[in-house]
């Protein structure tokens, strides 16, 4: 077996050194009835690279790739162009095959890029501090609510109806077992919700997404003031990180915690994961934050370096009193994010955001001319909602047969809500060509 360096001679010699005749004797503490006498029956035996490559390539070939067709899906995962440099550097073994930087003297590479990552996330979100990543946007959202509960010593969270439903469900699942209360609004495709009116003396936080799941961009300033007046925290959710290159960041609008999905920078769609949870907050809440934090310090010779810090919040030190149970997070995804953002830089990132918005406006202009179709979103970034006047999932399936991946039917995200059957979320990015847009407009025009 190509991955196992021990030779038969090695094994014999090692067994002799240990003083046992066979490896089976090393398993003598396992109850005899549970010891298998040989490889599990009914499973295939080992295979060479070529055979495994063939098997998996055959599976991959059964999927329609986003890059092969006109493609307009978003809904919390966005197709962006990732520069070749990112994946090339990401595959350096020194990054790929290291682990959590427990020994900082030989992990300065990981620690420095995570420190740079934290700095970038703080800038993007307009917040004072950011951690070294969470699993994804949805789990970051649930953790943010737990953090708000701890901070305010209250236990009722108000969730916007236009929060991505996977984020809502992830948070509600935690609420069910942790015992806090969720007040979740109904989806509001027109983009208008009264969240301030739901805040009371028991409210720990309001969770609001911008751009929201239907694409509406929100000014959070008034909501932040309403939260502050009642002693609740404002948690802003961003599922499209590129939007932060163009829109006023949540921090500047008064958010206390900003969480988000970082997939848009550096990560492929990869059928939904692994992605990257972003987590940023005001500095005064830092000791309630979940996850790893990297801090700057000096070594014995006085040279600048970085270490894991404030670990007394974490499970390996505090056990049942930890702020979160998280251990392994999304280190390599954070590296992809920070490398992509470093390549873009100030001008590249803001230009990319402008390009995304312009593409979406161009798409809206092309679709807006179609009969039987209505655009629901006034202010948007790179995604908006259209009413197609008939079942959107059927429209999407028909267009898929014609080789167009048209968008996300609202019912795919909200299977249990009424009144959304005709709504379709469409997104455009720098990858969307004018020919793609024309193909979608033509396809929709023929169906509607």
């Amino acid at each position, binding site marked *: 077996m190509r*991955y*196992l*360096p*021990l030779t038969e001679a090695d094994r014999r010699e090692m067994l002799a050194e240990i*003083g046992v005749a066979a490896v089976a004797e*090393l*398993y003598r503490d396992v*109850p005899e009835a549970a010891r298998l006498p040989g*490889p599990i029956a009914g499973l295939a035996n080992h295979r060479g*690279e070529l055979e*495994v490559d063939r098997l*998996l390539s055959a599976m991959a*070939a059964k*999927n329609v790739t986003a890059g092969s067709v006109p493609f307009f899906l978003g809904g919390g995962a966005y197709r962006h162009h990732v520069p070749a*440099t990112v994946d090339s*550097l990401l595959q*350096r*073994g*020194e990054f*790929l095959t*290291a*682990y959590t930087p*427990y020994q900082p*003297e030989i992990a*300065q590479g990981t620690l420095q890029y995570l420190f*740079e990552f934290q700095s970038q996330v703080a800038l993007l979100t307009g917040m004072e501090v950011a951690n070294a990543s969470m*699993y994804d946007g949805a789990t970051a959202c649930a953790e943010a609510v737990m953090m708000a509960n701890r901070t305010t010593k209250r236990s009722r969270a108000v969730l916007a109806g236009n929060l991505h439903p*996977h984020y809502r469900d*992830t948070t509600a699942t935690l609420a*069910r*077992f942790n*015992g806090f209360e969720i007040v979740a609004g109904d989806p509001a495709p027109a983009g208008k919700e009264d969240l301030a009116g739901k805040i009371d003396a028991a409210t720990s936080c309001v969770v609001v997404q911008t751009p929201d799941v239907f694409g509406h*961009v929100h000014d959070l300033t008034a909501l932040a003031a309403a939260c502050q007046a009642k002693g609740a925290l404002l948690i802003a959710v961003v599922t499209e990180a590129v939007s932060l290159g163009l829109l*006023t960041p949540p921090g500047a609008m008064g958010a206390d915690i900003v969480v988000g999905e970082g997939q848009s920078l550096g990560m492929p769609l990869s059928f939904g*994961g*692994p992605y990257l949870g972003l987590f940023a907050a005001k500095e005064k809440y830092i000791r309630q934050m979940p996850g790893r934090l*990297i801090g*700057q*310090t000096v*070594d*014995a*010779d006085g040279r600048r370096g970085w270490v894991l*810090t404030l670990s007394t919040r974490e499970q*390996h030190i505090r056990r*049942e*009193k930890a702020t979160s149970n998280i251990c*392994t*997070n*999304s*280190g*390599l995804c954070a590296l992809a994010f920070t490398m992509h953002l*470093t390549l*873009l830089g*100030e*001008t590249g990132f803001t230009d990319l955001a402008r390009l995304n*918005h312009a593409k979406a406006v161009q798409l809206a202009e092309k679709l807006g001319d179609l009969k039987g179709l209505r655009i629901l979103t*006034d*202010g948007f970034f790179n995604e908006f909602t259209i009413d197609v006047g008939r079942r959107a999932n059927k429209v999407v399936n028909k267009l*898929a047969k014609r080789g167009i*991946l048209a968008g996300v039917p609202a019912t795919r995200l909200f299977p249990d809500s009424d009144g959304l059957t005709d709504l379709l979320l469409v997104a455009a990015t720098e990858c969307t060509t004018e020919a793609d847009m024309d193909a979608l407009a033509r396809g929709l025009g023929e169906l509607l």
Partner: protein
Amino acid sequence: MTNAKTISGHQGLQMDEPLIFELDSPGSSGVDLPPPPAVKSRLGAVAARNGVGLPGLTEPEVVRHYTRLSQKNYAIDAGFYPLGSCTMKHNPRLNEKMARLPGFADVHPLQPMTTVQGALELIDTLAGWLKTLTGMKAVAMSPAAGAHGEMCGMMAIAAAHDHRGGPARKRVLVPESAHGTNPATAAALGYSVEAIPATEDGRIDLAAFKAKLGFDVAAVMLTNPNTCGLFEREVRELAEAVHEAGAFLYCDGANFNAIVGRVRPADLGVDAMHINLHKTFSTPHGGGGPGSGPVVFSEALAPFVPLPAIIHDDDGYRLIESQDDDDGTALAFGRMKAFHGQMGVFIRALAYTLSHGADGLYQSSADAVLSANYLLAKLKGTFNAPFDGPCMHEALFDDKSLKGTGVGTLDIAKALIDEGFHPMTVYFPLVVHGAMLIEPTESESKRSIDQFIATMKGLAERAKTDAASFHAAPILAPRRRLDETAAARKPVLKWKKGA
């Protein structure tokens, strides 16, 4: 080497590298974008922001920056990385290639299901392997890492108790030697956590355990093999007692690498267990993730598996994303994260599994256990092993033999850095004083293990006469010991202009 002062600050191949913010050339970018189409902005009421504050670098500068950073990292690719409980085994590159096939990497999670049949087939195939290897009835694929899997497993247990009714069960029993994630998980779900004491042979004290058991206990969280590197011999008696009390046995599967393909957790009486794909199934640890922590479930817990589920029938594969009686998901307890799980990690794990097959896994776990026992046998005359063998896939030592030398566990770890090894896990498990937990894994050659053994013996010898050299270590790494106290006292968590 660190004492050699150079004009540039570089030292041979070790380059001193500033932060990206200190390399800023305003206006520079490593990406060329086309001009946007001329359209009128439709941002609505929200004003466009006035700059972000990011530095500008060109592509060659970016490549050099990250290449230099990478050279400050220790990694499995470079050397022996016996970090106990973390299973730092070889990461096959075929797996990386497979995860990058456009048919997997360039597929959106919300595409129509007819266009993602291969992706669903891949998840279902891996799920099948995991169920067969563990003997369990069901598997939740979505958890993102081990701790997330623990949460998933414990939520299913809570949901099952809810469904069953009966007395409130608010206690969870956890051995003293458990990973910190276990008590943290139980506490996050509102349970009170109680420690189970250990016997002198490093295992659960079954009598003391039974005395703690009662009808108010929801679950026991057991790590098996445990964090002392030992197999819990009485696991079946323990499981029986747990079940008699109406509770469930959760198993922390972090150490599954010792038994994968040779012992099925179902045969031990386990009700739920997470599997760290980034450990046992070799997906890269990536400097701290991404991981993946699928959870396998017994028949009793299978109805509560969270969404989404995958169904395979005559019409092909389907994702079930909301509760539905017809699809058997009426009791699904909720959702763990967005979308369907760590697909990129699944691909790598399946490539690993298909490469090994049943026979390769049977051999790999044996080699992992053999190597750990070899290390134990060779080093136990030098360092004190608190428990008799055989061990499973990791060997545990304490600091008893260092007593009176002025050299502690941390000093040994730092001296190993100068010797070109990644240190073992230190000061964990907490039940042993000055713990050194060494996990060689099956992908290490005997030559490499022998070199480590010889180094450890040499360090033990040097400790008797030269404590000062240990306190100074490391002196050959990119940095010497870092001041962690200062870092925590006045946290600097981001770059600041002019700071």
